Each structure stands twice: as structure tokens, then as C-alpha cells.
């Protein structure tokens, strides 16, 4: 909106998303047999509208914040952008490669070691093994996991998992980084490190969608902040003008 024509990399238009709670419908055969009369009522109750007519655009190199109460639909929105779930109505257009959804308990296999998970994650993001190994040392170093990298993820603390998740995501050269409240679990030192890294990535033109509970954290890094309430967009505030130019 700054007059200068920047490329739109995420375009969300009139997005609606309803969850059907399958677990309520058929958890097990026993349920079906025992609760048959109640099943129909349940079926009707088990639809849940999460996002209602959401529209916004994110430009290349922008840091776009999303705020809202618990259950407002922020994580759902990120999952839709990441393409792991599909909308009922509306369109999402994304240009460029997306990082894995960074949220609590990142996409790791608990029984595999940190090392194995780095390789697996990289592959699922579309990198070849060679490309992953070129960045391997950097990933391990940034995560500060030391010898824990050879241990299975299930023995990691939530902070350690978040560190590894963040490290993998930022080192796999994404065009778009999706960050959902991960910084909340790391210690202050790691939070600072992550925020610095995010600033560095922003300066190099990486687009970011950032969800956090800390208004201060959001304002320190976001160009715009969108607030959603019960699945509806309430406001989109401009925090900084011409952010791209200011840092260049």
C-alpha cells in the first residue's frame, strides 16, 4: 500500500474454513453401536466454523503479524497457507517455497534422532540429501543442541525441539517463513537469536507470517498486524511504513 509496486506472494481471498470433527462421528465401532441414537445429533453438532470470509495480501519481504485470542483461528490460517489443509470456500495463492509450519512440537518424528529428523525434514521440504548436508553443520550450530543431535527427539525439552525446528526452517532457504508462537518456549537468549535471524531473513527478502502472543515482540518486527476474532478479520494495522526501504 506504499505506492511502490511490490510483488504479492500470499493472496488470500474470501476464505472460509469449517472443521468436521470426525472423531465425534466415528471414533470406534463401539461408539457407533453404543451411541447410535445420539449419532445423528452429534453429526450436526460436530461442524465448526473456524474462519469466516478472511481476505488479505502479503507482499514480498514483508513481515505480516496475526493476533487474536486462543482459538481465533490463527494456526488454522497458517496451516491453510502452508497447504496442509484445504479451504471450503475462497482461494489462497502462494508464490515461492514455504518453510514447515513452525509451531509447538514441530514436525519431527519423536523416535528419530535430531540428525535423522533434520535430514527427513529437509527432504519433506523438497531438498535433496546433498543440499541438506551442505547446511547441516549450520543447522546444528544454530540450534545449540551439541551432542543431543544424536539423541531421539522424544528426550528433548520443548525448548530444544523449538530450537531445532526453527533452525531447520530458517536454514532451508524458504521464500516464506511461517512462525506460530514458537518463540514462546525458548529462553530469552534463544528468542533474541531467533528475532535477529528473522530480521536478517527479512532484509534478504524472505516473507514472514508471524503469530505471537507478545504484542511487543510483534511490533518490534512486523510491518503489518492483522487481528482476528472468532475467525473474522477485525483490523489490519500498518506498523511501519516502507519497511523494505528503511532497512535497505
Amino acid at each position, binding site marked *: 500500500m506504499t505506492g511502490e509496486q511490490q510483488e504479492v506472494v500470499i493472496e488470500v481471498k474470501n476464505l472460509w474454513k469449517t472443521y468436521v470433527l470426525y472423531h465425534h462421528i*466415528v471414533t470406534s465401532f463401539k461408539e457407533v453401536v453404543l451411541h447410535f441414537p445420539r449419532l445423528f445429533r452429534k453429526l450436526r453438532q460436530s461442524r465448526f466454523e473456524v474462519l469466516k470470509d478472511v481476505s488479505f495480501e502479503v507482499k514480498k519481504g514483508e513481515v505480516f503479524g496475526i493476533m487474536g485470542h486462543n482459538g481465533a483461528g490463527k494456526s488454522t490460517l497458517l496451516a491453510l497457507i502452508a497447504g496442509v*489443509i484445504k479451504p471450503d470456500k475462497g482461494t489462497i495463492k502462494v508464490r515461492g517455497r514455504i518453510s514447515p509450519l513452525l509451531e509447538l512440537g514441530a*514436525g519431527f518424528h519423536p523416535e528419530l534422532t535430531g540428525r*535423522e529428523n533434520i*535430514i527427513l525434514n529437509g*527432504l519433506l521440504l523438497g531438498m*535433496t540429501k546433498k543440499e541438506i548436508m551442505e547446511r547441516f553443520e549450520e543447522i546444528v550450530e544454530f540450534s545449540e543442541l551439541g551432542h543431543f543431535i544424536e539423541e531421539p527427539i522424544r528426550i528433548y525439552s520443548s525448548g530444544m525441539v523449538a530450537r531445532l525446528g526453527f533452525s531447520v526452517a530458517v536454514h532451508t532457504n524458504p521464500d516464506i517463513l511461517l512462525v506460530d508462537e514458537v518463540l514462546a518456549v525458548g529462553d530469552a537468549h534463544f528468542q533474541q537469536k531467533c528475532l535477529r535471524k528473522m530480521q536478517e531473513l527479512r532484509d534478504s527478502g524472505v516473507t514472514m507470517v508471524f503469530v505471537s502472543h507478545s504484542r511487543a515482540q510483534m511490533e518490534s518486527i512486523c510491518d503489518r498486524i492483522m487481528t482476528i476474532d472468532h475467525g473474522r478479520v477485525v483490523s489490519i494495522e500498518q506498523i511501519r511504513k516502507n519497511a523494505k526501504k528503511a532497512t535497505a
Partner: protein
Amino acid sequence: MIGLTARQWEYYRDLIFELTNKELKLKYKSSMLGFVWSLLLPFTHALVYFVAFKYILRIKVENYALFLIVGLFVWQWFANSILAGTGAVLSNGNLIKKTKFPYEFLVVAVIISEWLHFILAFVTIFIFLGIYGIPPNVYWMFIPLLMVMQSILNLGFAFFVASITVFFRDMVWFINIFLNMFFYLTPIIYPIDMIPDRLRIFIVDGNPMALFVALYRQIIIYGTFDYLYLALAILYSVVIFLFGWWVFSKLKWKFAEVL
């Protein structure tokens, strides 16, 4: 496949290799004997059936031990592939919820890992051939084709159970019952010619596993080959594969929501 660039080839090779590697690692992560267990199971079955059928029911089948080993290994490969298939999507919820990637490869990795087990088991068949003094014959060249076709059959079933189990956890129980019934209704521990003629059309002609077991036995033990069986086996495998794949691709969009 021709449209793939060199980098894409490298990528898919790495992806399949690592996913298969992960399957194998997880399978044996806390097991001392590892691979040996997957050999021991069909061997102990073979031993029990051998005693029960040869000495108690007095079944008249030549080379009955070899007959059993071949049948049980081929069956075990099928059954293990389906059972492992039930967890192919379910046990990877963490990965599916965070990243969009071709989930089909999770199932493919399971199928390849089970195929490797079968290869290993197959090698032990050579030992029996040595004991019985049966030389290899020209029909052995069909074995790779049989393996490819059965992999396709296994993949079809695995696609189906992997996606259905996500929505319907009790699927695992149905699978167990299905496999148990299917096992006794397939000529594995008894020969085809013991089946009454009017039942043969269901139990043999309409049953891809009966055809596969029969084909392996013809090649390995009897040195013959039935092209009609082969044609039917290929037909069923392809149809089941396409059906399973279709179900999987219809349901895969919902995986991340439900897991």
C-alpha cells in the same frame, strides 16, 4: 517418469531411501535380533503346519516343507505389507501436519521396507532348494516380474488401509480378521488340487494371492509356469492398485485435519 530432471531423480531417490531407512530403523529400534525375527515367524509357522498336516492329517504333498516355506513367505509378505500399511499415515501425523509433501511416499516406503524383508526371506529358500536338490530353471526369470506385480498389489491394499485407518481406527481389527480368513481360504497350507472344482473359481481364479502363491510354487518347485495365472494376477494387482490409490488421493486432503 521421462519428464523428470536429474535433480528430481536425485530428490525422489533420496526421499524414498530416507523414508524406507526410517521405517526399518523404527521397526528394529529396540529389538536385538532385528531382521531375524521376521524370518523366524514364517519358519515357526511352517514347522507347526508341517507337523500338523504331514504327521497328523497325513496330507499327501511332495516336498511339503518347501511347499509350505514358499507359500508362507509369499503370504507373510502380503500380510505384513497390509498390517504395516495401517500405520503408514497414522504414525506420521507430526510430519503431515507441518509440511505439505507427497504423502504417497510414506506408503511406498513401507512397501519397500516389507519387500526388502521378503528378499531376505527368499534367499533362505535357496538353502531348501539345495537340500531338496532342485536346480533353478528358465522360469526363474519371471520372479522379478512376480515381485513387481505383488508389490503393486500390496501397495494398492496399503494405500487403502493407510487412508481409511486415519478416519476409522478400528480398521486394524477388521484387517486382522480379514487376513486370518483370507489366509485359510487361500491355498497356502494345502494344494490347489484338494479344492473341489466348483469352489476353485472363487478360491483360486478370483484370488490374487492364490495366483501368486501358485506361480511361485510352479516356478520354484515344479519348474512349470501358467501364463493365464500370470495374466489374471497382473489384472487383479493393477485394478486393486488403482482402486487403493484412488481412495488414498480422495482422502489425503483431510489427513492433516484429522490426525
